[in-house]
């Protein structure tokens, strides 16, 4: 009975974690990594180096670059 009770929260937690994993990572882990990197780089540019003008340009450019890299990966997979 006790084991049954303790397994329910675990199952709920596991299901919750799996949902977010599928939602954020899924079959495009490169986009998740790219998002983490572009937040880190923009933090460096804006918060550490205090370069607002550069941050305005760098952030959208990194988004475009990430999308381009992910599409290139998809094209490579399609050719296989």
């Amino acid at each position: 009975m006790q084991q049954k009770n303790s397994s329910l929260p675990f199952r709920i937690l596991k299901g919750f974690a799996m949902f977010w994993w599928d939602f954020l990572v899924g079959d495009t882990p490169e986009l998740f990594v790219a998002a983490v990197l572009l937040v880190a780089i923009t933090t460096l540019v804006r918060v550490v180096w205090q370069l607002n003008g550069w941050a305005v340009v760098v952030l959208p450019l990194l988004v475009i670059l990430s999308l381009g890299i992910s599409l290139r990966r998809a094209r490579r997979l399609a050719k296989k």
Partner: protein
Amino acid sequence: MFIGAAVSSGVVVLVGAVFLASTVEMVEALTIVLAVGRTRGWRSAFEGTGAALVVLAALVAAFGPALVQIPISVLRLLVGSVLLIFGMQWLRKAILRASGLKAKHDEDLIYQETVAELRLAGTTPGRDRVAFVMAFKGVFLEGLEVVITVLTLGTSAHRLGLAAITAVSAVVVVGVVGVIVAKQLSRVPENAMKMSVGVLLISYGTFWVGEGLKVKWPGNDGALLVFVLLYGLVAWLLVLSSRPKSSLVGVA
């Protein structure tokens, strides 16, 4: 009078993103509900749909006020990051479909597959559990993405009510139109809508990540429209550059 100067570009992008995302997801959900209703009866299909909508509304009601308690710069950074990932996933998929590298979403095929699956499932005495579960799952799973879009965009912009009303409007519009032209769901330009949602989500994502990191955008809210135009142009160029010489289908 209603459409005055007070309606900022942020509101336009928010309403557009939530309405289009909700419409796309609800078209997919409606395909399943129609298949369930026609094959197994409407009562269980409606019950499953109603139960799923209640659970989805409860999720918005439970998590919305909780998210608002998070400090605004932290919330915007988190939400912006999620929107960027989510938006790039949508846009990537839509570009691959538009360029022919991935098979397009076919509502007719999904309808036929669902009907075949339902016919194979045996009948149960009393309430049709199979039909209820199928309708519930279809609406709930498609609706979860809508809930996340409503919660993230709505709470960051401090317009959760507007985001929720927009999503409900889309559900009602798709429901009414879907019932009237049930056989023409496949004619909905789903991929173009998905691409628009992707562009709007990454525009908002870029804007909120910047705001979360104290980036001062030129033109404040107006920067959102610049992002929409920029990413729209980039998406169009990427579709053109992704078109293969020979038609290939089957990318994850």
